[in-house]
Each structure stands twice: as C-alpha cells, then as structure tokens.
C-alpha cells in the first residue's frame, strides 16, 4: 500500500467508484446493450443541451465530444478511460435524448463480403 497522500495519481485510476458517474445505474435505461464496436455519432446540434430534460454530466460531455466524429463504443471507452459498462449507460442517455445516434449496432453481416475481406488484406499488407 503506497503511503497516504501519494496514491491519487494518474495511473491509480478513478477515485470515485465507476458507476458513481452513472448515478448507480449499471444498465442502459432501455436495456439495449450497445455492441463493443457499435458505431455512433453525434447528431447535428446535439451538443446543445437546452432541451435535454436530464442534466448532462461532465462525462456525458466528454463522450459527446468524442462522438463528433464517428466512433465505436470501444474507442470512446478508451478515449475517456471510463469502463465499458459506464460508457454504455451514458451513451444510451445521449441516444435517448437524441444527441447521439447509432449508425451501426453490429458488424454489418455475419461474414463480410469478399470485397471487405480483400480490403482488410490489402490494408494489412500495406502496414
């Protein structure tokens, strides 16, 4: 155990319990669980929270900022350093309030077409 006063560091993780930022909620409001690589994007004008009945937290705003470009749930979790489950709850708030929309919930198709696989192969070979 590090001495008191020294443990609150960047790498010591969040000081509040993870689900404190969701108000204790561990599941999205409507029970719909976003896939880890679901693609989401902010709606035009969605960053104005004037008409949002729920108060937006700083975490909501950080997520919204990352949604200005299309991003996956995993990208947002990594980008905010928030646990995946927390990001899912907060994202579903933003989706319900119309600030964010889901572009693709699942990877399109079960097995992508050969054109997509070929594109992936070309991309890997070019690395």
């Amino acid at each position, binding site marked *: 155990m590090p001495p008191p006063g020294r443990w609150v560091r960047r790498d010591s*993780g969040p000081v509040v319990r*993870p*689900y404190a930022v969701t108000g204790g909620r561990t599941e*999205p409001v*409507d029970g*719909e669980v976003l*896939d*880890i*690589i679901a*693609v989401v*994007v902010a709606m035009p004008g969605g960053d104005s929270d004037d008409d949002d009945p729920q108060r937006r937290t700083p975490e909501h705003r950080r997520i919204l900022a990352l949604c200005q470009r*299309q*991003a*996956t749930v*995993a*990208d947002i*979790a*990594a*980008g905010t*350093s*928030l*646990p*995946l*489950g*927390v990001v899912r709850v907060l994202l*579903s708030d933003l*989706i*319900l309030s119309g600030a964010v*929309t*889901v*572009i*693709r*919930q*699942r*990877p*399109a198709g*079960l*097995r*992508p077409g*050969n054109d*997509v*696989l*070929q*594109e*992936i*192969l*070309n*991309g*890997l*070979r070019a*690395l």
Partner: protein
Amino acid sequence: MVFAPSDHASDAGLTAHKILIAGGFGAGKTTLVSAISEVRPLLTEEPLSTASVGRDSLAGLPDKKTTTVALDFGRITISESLVLYLFGVPGQERFWFMWDELAYGALGAVVLGDVRRLDDCFPSVNYFETRELPFIVAVNCFDDAPRYDLAEIRLALDLDDDVPLVLCDARDQSSVKETLIRLVESIAAGGTSAAQGRSLSIGR
C-alpha cells in the same frame, strides 16, 4: 432504442470489424497486439462472480461487487471507413462470460500458443470450435522454447486439418502481420467457417 437505418450511412459510414487474440496467460497476447497496433487499455467493470471467490483477494473490501478487467485493445486503420480492432481476451476461466460478447460478430480469432504449455490453448481452441468461429493457431516462438515442427504441434493440439497453424514472433510486426493475413485469407477461403456465425446469427 431507436437506431438509424443501417444502410443510412453504409456508403460513407465507418465500418468496424474485430479479431480476437486468445491464448493462455503469458502466451504473448499483449505483445502481439502492441506489435501491430496502437494499444490503449480498455477497462471493463465486471460483476464479481462466485468464480472469482478465492482468486481475487477481497480482504477488507466487503462491499466490492465488481472487479475491473483491462482488455488489450488495438486499433488498425485499414482505410478512412474501415477499422480493424484487436481484442486480447483474458484467458482465465473466470472471464469466460466476457468471451461471448467479444466473439459476437467477430471476424475470427488467433489462438496464441506457447509450445512449453500447449495445453493452455485447449480452452480457446474448444471455444472457437464449438462456436464455429474461424480461427488459426499461432505458436509464439519464444527464444528459449524448444522447437517442434508444425506437424507435431498439430498432433499435440488435435487440430483439424483445415485450421491453419503458423509459427510467429509476437514481438515482430511483420510476423504478426503475416499471422493476421493468414487468418483473413482463411476466412476468405471459407476453410474454417463452414457454418460461421450459426451461433452468432441473432441480431442484425
């Protein structure tokens, strides 16, 4: 939850695919993911299950009901609209519940093996065989590990002939790249995906 029509943005939208990196503890999953992609830790906060009793020390934490699990998470930008994600899946049995979610809709998986502890691969191999998710086995060539030829390793793993088996160096970008290429080629050829996704066909 209302979703936009899925073809709404299919022309310009971002498409994401994922490949799982599995294998026993210490097989080199983290090394492999970081050799080829920018890795960022992805935190998941998981309920503590009875499976973790006796494994996670909860002394002094009587109220602790969740545990943080960090996944290795790598992102490879294939093109402006296509991104490939690598997820290192934790090998310990108590994390099995996370696998279903990670495996859902995955392109396929690389099972990373260490010839000194090949039996560590068995749970992963069984998992992907059962779920009919395409996979390859990549034997990580640790410097101090004995060398076996692939036929011997295939026999030891009781691996079907249509599952590709390769040697790789998880530290080396080009070796990891070849391994991923081999996986995607085998998916394209349909060799290990006779009925891919039958168990993954829920959702859209």
